């Protein structure tokens, strides 16, 4: 075999290196300019259009008790800010919402895992759990008030009832969608039982779980607003829902608009700051996110 030819092993090595070089993808990060043009500019334009339509519509409707001017709403914001109330409203609701969501997470995660893995439990409460998702969470406010009274626990109860089913269902569908190939690969490596759940099932189910969290947050926020609007009590403090209801009882349309905008803004902001990046990170690290 001692000839001038390369040995098969060397040959394989060099061919392989060539193939690898040919087949390796290079992925770059988008530039600042690209992010600006693709991500930031479109919503800014959309916002400008909405404001323009609003300004045009105002003199046509010509009834500030129905449609306040953008300027009036702006000055309501400014006033609330100057009095130092604005952040207070936001904080009252956000802290409630996030804390409630956190409890929902603690309950929904093990619940989802049990429903996904235990056949009997799944048959027993699986359908109820997915049915609950389509029940508007406002429906829970009256019974919660009767059971728990007008206090913070009632708010948290309503958030839990809204968010737990979403979180649990997200995890269940995440687990259901784990490719059997991964489970079998795990088993041949010795990942069975709890090890299998920890090293294979849970990470593989993460995309579904995160989608559930995202939806769970949306439901938490909606449930909380419903609870705050319906359940008025001085001791509860003024959150965004109460602000909205106060605006209505005082026939102060600018305040109503202020509250609606704040509710929308906070809901979107939390999603953009926490859940969307989380989801994108999970998908991107698995190559599931197509750039564009």
């Amino acid at each position: 075999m001692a000839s001038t030819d390369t040995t098969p092993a060397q040959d394989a090595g060099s061919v392989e290196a060539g193939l690898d070089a040919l087949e390796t993808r290079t992925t770059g990060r988008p530039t600042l300019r690209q992010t600006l043009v693709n991500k930031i500019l479109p919503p800014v334009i959309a916002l400008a259009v909405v404001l323009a339509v609003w300004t045009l519509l105002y003199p046509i409707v010509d009834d500030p008790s129905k449609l306040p001017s953008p300027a009036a709403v702006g000055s309501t914001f400014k006033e609330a800010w100057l009095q130092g109330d604005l952040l207070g409203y936001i904080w009252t609701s956000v802290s409630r919402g996030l804390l409630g969501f956190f409890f929902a997470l603690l309950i929904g995660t093990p619940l989802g895992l049990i429903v996904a893995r235990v056949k009997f439990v799944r048959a027993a409460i699986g359908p109820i759990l997915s049915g609950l998702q389509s029940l508007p969470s406002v429906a829970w406010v009256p019974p919660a008030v009767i059971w728990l009274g007008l206090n913070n626990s009632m708010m948290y109860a309503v958030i839990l009832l809204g968010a737990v089913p979403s979180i649990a269902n997200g995890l269940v569908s995440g687990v259901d969608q784990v490719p059997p190939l991964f489970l079998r690969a795990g088993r041949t490596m010795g990942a069975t039982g709890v090890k299998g759940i920890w090293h294979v099932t849970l990470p593989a189910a993460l995309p579904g779980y995160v989608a559930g969290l995202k939806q769970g947050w949306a439901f938490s926020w909606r449930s909380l607003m419903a609870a705050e609007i319906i359940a008025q009590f001085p001791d509860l403090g003024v959150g965004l829902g109460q602000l909205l209801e106060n605006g209505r009882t005082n026939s102060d349309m600018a305040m109503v608009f202020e509250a609606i905008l704040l509710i929308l803004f906070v809901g979107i902001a939390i999603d953009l700051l926490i859940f969307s990046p989380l989801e994108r990170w999970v998908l991107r690290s698995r190559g599931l996110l197509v750039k564009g």
Partner: protein
Amino acid sequence: MATTTTLAQADESVEYAARLEHVSKSFAGPGGQQLVLDDVSIDVAPGEFVTLLGASGCGKSTLLNLVAGLDRPSTGDIITDGRPALMFQEHALFPWLTAGKNIELALKLRGVPKPDRRTKAEELLELVRLKGAYGKRVHELSGGMRQRVALARALAQESNLLLMDEPFAALDAITRDVLHDEITRIWAETGVSVLFVTHNVREAVRLAQRVILLSSRPGRIAREWTVDIPQPRRIEDAPVAELAREITEELRGEIRRHGQH
């Protein structure tokens, strides 16, 4: 190899990396029980490279699953020396981990202490000639690279038996050629026993010391060839092509028989 096993196991493990005794497997099908494997007996000696050849759907994957312990035979016994490593047709790497972490997971599940895992994983990547791929995500690798990482992960289990289920079927001819050289080299370097499933006759002859032909419906051992062409072989070598032609003839006969009724 197995120094601390019990007597009975040691007895087995010295002689066989895997022993299948009269293994049958049937599945519940639409028309009652469907017999997929019928009375299959195979011994794989330690360090031996055996390829299992058969038409599509003849039960090759079923057989490997049984040997891997993912399923139980309907009748018969399967004895292996420890848990075999299994490489699937699809790479089956975990997309939430990097190439290196995939290998480290196999090491961790085997009980390798944390400080040693990183070096061990890098050694294994070097063995499959993917030195720089430690931090790469699965989707950033090409098909051939993925299969090599999967091979490294299977080797990380340090099983005495490596089961491979058409691992190169989805690759292009050149990449497959290169991986044939690699698997031959790694087999020689590590002394692992290999049971390699394929429906590609030339691939079977290129790699194996012994080729076992499985008939279809039900899968039975039809014939067996010992390949004594010296390594290194190439898939286009005349002796390889010669034997492949003979086996193909036999395989055709097997398949033709099904058309007759």
